[in-house]
């Protein structure tokens, strides 16, 4: 039954045929995928002759439908790392062929048997200088509506980040975050719930902060980087910045597995990573990439703010993803 339903869906979605000289890359659209196309896909096609078709945005429901129906039209997919760990456990991913993808220089925080890093980023505290008087310096300020009135914006979906921010603001030390005390986190979030505006995509977070619709918020560092580049009047605090990563995976049953592995090698190479980081403001997951980047760009990377940096625990999230998500959405809908 599952197969029939998923088959109908996947059949409708089928876009690319399996051909040795092409493959499909799927990511989140927008400026991120543009940068991936320019930094990875175009040079890769030029050197290997393998055409890279772009699809997107990444949709976990679609991905599962394809795999269930055994009609997988995506060959490489950019996903969040906690999803990748969970998906690997559920048997949805191909193992990475490390004979084709050099592993030595990959940051071990963001690669495993079924995934290689795509890029990593930090959640930072950003604010609109016109809407906030003074500097907001810590996550706790986002919960102080007296000192800092105005709307605050957080990431809408259940994902590593907001729960940790609430706990840090409530005084939990960084090394005692896990296992997450959900009761405490939601209690803390309750105190500002009516002042929260949720953002569901990067462009929305930029619009909210740049317009002053939200005075401050939790943003991806690359999006703040882009705002600063455009001359928006924003401030940013890297205090307790929270790292998380996107990874590249090959769905189980992908039709162009060999091409996919070659693509992964190019995408995670020092040059591919350096170019992408320069275009996006996100950090490279290849430790050799920084040597190929301009010094002023390196300065703006999460790598330059390791003091007080906190790595969000992807393994913990992978394990408790469903349980936290169920509670998260129930709390939001309240």
């Amino acid at each position, binding site marked *: 039954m599952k197969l029939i339903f998923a088959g109908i869906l996947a059949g409708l979605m089928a876009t690319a045929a399996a051909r040795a000289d092409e493959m499909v890359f799927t990511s989140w659209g927008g400026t991120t995928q543009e940068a991936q196309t320019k930094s990875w896909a175009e040079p890769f096609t030029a050197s290997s002759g393998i055409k890279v078709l772009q699809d997107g945005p990444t*949709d976990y429901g679609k991905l599962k439908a394809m795999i269930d129906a055994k009609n997988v039209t995506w060959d490489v997919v950019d996903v969040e790392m906690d999803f990748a760990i969970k998906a690997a456990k559920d048997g949805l991913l191909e193992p990475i062929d490390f004979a084709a993808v050099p592993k030595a220089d990959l940051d071990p925080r963001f690669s495993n048997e079924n995934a290689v890093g795509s890029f990593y980023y930090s959640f930072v505290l950003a604010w609109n200088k016109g809407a906030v008087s003074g500097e907001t310096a810590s996550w706790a300020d986002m919960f102080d509506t007296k000192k800092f009135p105005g*709307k605050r914006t957080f990431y*809408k979906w259940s994902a590593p980040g907001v729960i940790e921010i609430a706990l840090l603001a409530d005084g939990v030390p960084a090394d005692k975050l896990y296992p997450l005390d959900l009761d405490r986190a939601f209690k803390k979030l309750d105190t500002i719930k009516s002042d929260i*505006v949720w953002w569901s995509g990067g462009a929305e977070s930029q619009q909210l902060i740049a317009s*002053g619709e939200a005075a401050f918020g939790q943003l991806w560092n690359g999006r703040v980087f882009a705002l600063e580049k455009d001359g928006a009047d924003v401030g940013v605090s890297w205090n307790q910045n929270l790292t998380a990563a996107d990874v590249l995976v090959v769905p189980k049953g992908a039709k162009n597995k060999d091409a996919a592995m070659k693509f992964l090698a190019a995408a995670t190479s020092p040059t591919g990573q350096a170019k992408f980081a320069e275009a996006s403001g996100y950090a490279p997951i290849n430790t050799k990439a920084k040597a190929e980047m301009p010094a002023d760009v390196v300065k703006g990377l999460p790598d330059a703010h390791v003091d007080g940096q906190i790595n969000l625990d992807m393994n913990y999230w992978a394990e408790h993803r469903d349980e936290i998500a169920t509670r998260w959405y*129930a709390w*939001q*809908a309240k």
Partner: protein
Amino acid sequence: MSVEAQQGIAAPRVPAGLSGLLPALILIGLFFVVPVLALLLRSVTDPAPGLQNYAALLGDGTYARVFFNTFLVAFVVTIVTVLVAFPVAWMLAIMPPALASILFGIIILSMWTNLLTRTYAWMVLLQRTGVINRALIGAGIIDQPLPLINNLTGVTIGMVYIMLPFMILPLVGTLRAIDPMTLRAAALCGASPLAAFRRILLPLSLPGIAAGGLMVFVMSLGYFVTPALLGGTSNMMLAEMIAQMIQSLLNWGLGSAAAFILLVVTMALYALQLRLVGARRAVGGA
């Protein structure tokens, strides 16, 4: 649909045998019946056979609240749409045909504009730093921005705007079929304009209101984009919750069950409405 309109349709040509209907039946079967059955099956088989998905949905306060929100939004949107659409439809029905067709064109044109574009336009207008709030603050009418977005107000404004054509079109048909002489007769018999509206025009236009209202209500129940962008998480509607279940939780069984419950409730409402309108029409015709 009014009685007059139904009678206006040319006598249907019945094809010899069923063979002429076959393509239509296959189409309906393949694209409407099979998916709904697949949905139903999935809701009772995924992740294991049984009714646990329905038990989870019906036994949880959160889901109950989302169901309630869904019907509340659809109800409010339908009422407001009727109130806004009626004067417009009446104006279209009585104005010279040439002018009416131009206005019709404008209304239809809005339906052809991309839904997402129109919703984003409302975001720009309604947000705290948006055009409406800035103008009101600038004019000194208010000093704090009005909460027009991320709540029921925002959803209602955005959805009524999108639903208006679906209400106006059937209503104009019904209103045009009403003989203007009935209103003149009412006036001659001494009825005030209000009485004439309440006792003549409103009852006669009920079939159009019912047809348009049902369409708007049912469409509103399944709406996704507008509530997601203009509403807040505390007025989450069912479509958004189903999207979360499917895309974020990968819980297709639960998502299917939620979709199926919505379908059943919608069909029940439809049946109820058919009975009510049928009954009223019978009374009106006596």
